[in-house]
């Protein structure tokens, strides 16, 4: 067992992990941050996307020991300080960008990373960026629309949600 220490959502988080423990497992099982979901075992689905030192990372693709000393942000830390939904989260609710909610944390974290790098993405850019995030419920229509709306673009011409 190896001790790891990192900053998760602004707070210090530490624990003893096996060499094979994934960051996703550390967050879920050791830290109780169950908003990070695990939907596959081949790093395809993106339900586990978190930010490590500001970069979007699939937490099932990184060992917990690799994240030692890092700053990690998860879905639990995304809401505004007063607890209200942030702009992206609110856009997902406003545009019905989620159904079962399982892929949602990864979608929100990926969307945040996209909008940081590309504040006004086109539809094609959003769809391309979401290549690593699978949703089985929404058919993506409302997710793409929500992300474009969160970027401040007018989405009223896109068919209704």
């Amino acid at each position, binding site marked *: 067992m190896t001790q790891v220490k990192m900053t998760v959502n602004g707070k210090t988080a530490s624990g003893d992990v*096996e060499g094979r423990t994934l960051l996703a497992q550390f967050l*879920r*099982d050791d830290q109780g*941050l*169950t*908003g*990070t*979901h*695990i*939907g*596959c*075992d*081949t790093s*395809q*689905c993106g*339900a586990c996307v978190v930010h490590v030192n500001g970069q979007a990372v699939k937490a099932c693709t990184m060992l917990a020991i690799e994240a030692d000393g890092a700053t990690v942000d*998860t*879905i*639990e830390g*995304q*809401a505004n300080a007063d607890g209200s*939904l942030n702009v992206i*989260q609110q856009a*997902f*609710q*406003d545009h*019905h960008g*989620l*159904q*079962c*909610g*399982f*892929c*949602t*944390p990864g979608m*929100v974290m990926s969307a945040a990373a996209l909008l940081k790098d590309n504040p006004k993405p086109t*539809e*094609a850019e*959003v*769809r*391309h960026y*979401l*290549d690593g*995030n*699978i*949703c*089985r*419920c*929404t*058919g*993506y*229509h*409302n*997710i*793409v*629309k929500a992300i474009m709306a969160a970027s401040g673009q007018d989405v009223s011409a*896109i*068919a*209704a*949600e």
Partner: protein
Amino acid sequence: MPKDGGIGASTKRREDVRFLTGNGRYTDDINLRGQAYVFFLRSDVAHGKLTSVDTSAAEGMDGVVRIFTGKDFEGVGGMPCGWQVTDKHGQPMQEPGHPVLAQGKVRHVGEPIAAVVAETLGQARDAAEAIVVDIEELPAVINMKDAVKDGAPKVHEELTSNLCYDWGFVEENKEAVNKAFEDAAHVTTLELVNNRLVANPMEPRVAVGDYSRSDGEHTLYTTSQNPHVIRLLMGAFVLGIPEHKLRVVAPDVGGGFGTKIFHYQEEAFCTFAAKACNRPVKWTSSRSEAFMSDAHGRDHVTKIELALDGDNNFTAIRTDTYANMGAYLSTFAPSVPTWLHGTLMAGNYKTPLIYVNVKAVFTNTVPVDAYRGAGRPEATFQLERLVDKAAHELGVDPIKLRRQNFITEFPYATPVAVEYDTGDYVATMDKLEEMADIAGFAARRKESEAKGRLRGFGVNCYIEACGIAPSNLVGQLGARAGLYESATVRVNATGGLVVMTGSHSHGQGHETAFPQVIAEMIGIDASMIEIVHGDTARTPMGMGTYGSRSIAVGGSAMVRATEKIIAKAKKIAGHILEASEGDIELKDGMFSVAGTDKSLAWGDVTLAAYVPHNYPLEDLEPGLEETAFYDPSNFTYPSGAYACEVELDPETGQVTIERFSAADDFGNIINPMIVTGQVHGGLAQGIGQALMENCAYDSDGQLLSASYMDYAMPRASDLPFYDVDHSCQTPCTHNPLGVKGCGEAGAIGSPPAVVNAVLDAMRSGGKDVAHIDMPVTPSRVWAAMQG
């Protein structure tokens, strides 16, 4: 304009807040004190005799609590099947046993052989690797037509063959149908495959078993669409636990699409092992495991024929289908190719004579059962591809041929045993033609051609039977359960209320939509209403969510219970207001006496029910809580017309969806935003089936598509924005809300339109191909273009 929170309003979903902030409570988020983890050692061969399972090296490994094999389950019941189909000779289907852990033989890759319970999942997995399994391999049967040949290896030795049943429907019509084909002016024939799919809800299945020695109560937390069904099946047929000692909880569930209806071995194992090990036992499926243990969907091979008279009227349909059951009968498997498929073969058309033959076949593959649409997509695909082919052969417009044969008068009794109550197929087709901008297609085709691409246009119609199901009818058809739904409405003293429903939400938004109905009925704010579901200890015995039944059946039960609440509340109000209950009106949450200014607020009446100081105690019990069980008198029949426009790159065979229009008739609608979202998701799954998804086995029974590296899940860049309309509304006549259900339509209605569009594009490029099987991958298109 509907009031926000009332019927017809696109009220934003209240459940979203917890999902968007990481506060959902899915089964894998549940961890119990002292919990151990189980890892299943699964068969890596498709068919073989299990000669020994040696666990001795694994037993002493770090962290191992206990290892279970088939021996531990010798006296335990097998997995039950919930539907018995009777074949065309009046004989019951062949029904093999289905053990929790393999008994002497393995019959598909992924069948659980042993289960290691350990302190950690890693230790359980390590120990499983040390188990030595000796399997004497047997030849596997994978192809259905090979499986029913004389001398084929048998999946189950105790059965007479690999044929589960040979079903004829309607058997009495067979001769008349054959005669109609002899007399036909034209016959169109089509052979096709409805490709095998994996449902793939994003949340893999999870089960956590718990047992309390203090009161002998078992609890199972599981990813289920119907916890009461699991409690009944597992308690009564597998483990012998009475309902009062067994609680099944299905908390937030991350998508179901049918595959979380069924009772699975892992649920029974965790419940059993929790008692045997005296500690909670948790199983979390990996995605790779899900591919070889979740029930698969579709997998039909069909020959279908259409007879037409000299005026292009449909006179008869005849089908011959092989339906894969896999190695064992999953919970509702036998019903899918029969009662959910044969009864839909009339589609939207007044074909007077229909005969459907289905041979259900055992193979050495994962069991196949209901997947979004379940039988209805298979029926729709056959019929709508066939009609398109007929139109092409006859040189008539496919939309015109459809319109000419539409059913236009309702109710309409089909020759396949069901009666459509309402519909307006002309209206949905009119709407579709407007949405799809058919007039502009020629110009769009030109634009595509200028880029070196071919452009194709395809349509289809669909009808589905949902709101499952009238219990009397399905009982006659072999269902071993009733398919009613239940609701308890509990009004609290200060006026808020809780609805405990047997329906289950795993993405459908019941927590938002159900309160909209009650808010409208009583005239109170929707925020005063809470929905409780997914826990057998908190909800009345109900059948769960599948077959687009929640609002049509569960919603109806809720309406009936609320009507009882209102009736009682009016009696209480009448007493307090010193008026006859018949004169009491309820509007906007106020009770008033007709023709007077006397009134009483909702909260005053609810308080009086629990603080009965001024109350008609001699006539009425205190309290305000009512339960209703609603059994529908018929299925509901949503219908619609869909259009797809594709672009095809003749150099690569790549097909892209450029436009998709869907005009649906769902009857009345509670929350249009949620309904549209349901259609979007269904369309993505239907387009996925048509273009990308395929569950593939090799001839030895190895599953070739067992991860997201191999099974092509549709991504955002594979799909377009959809144009969805549900303004055509012919309300259901037999349920109180006039609703029909919308969950499966998109998946049922979309595959034929896609394939019809691809063939149209190919024709425009000079390649007249009669049919192309799904998934219409670039390699298949390219090969067909070269052929």
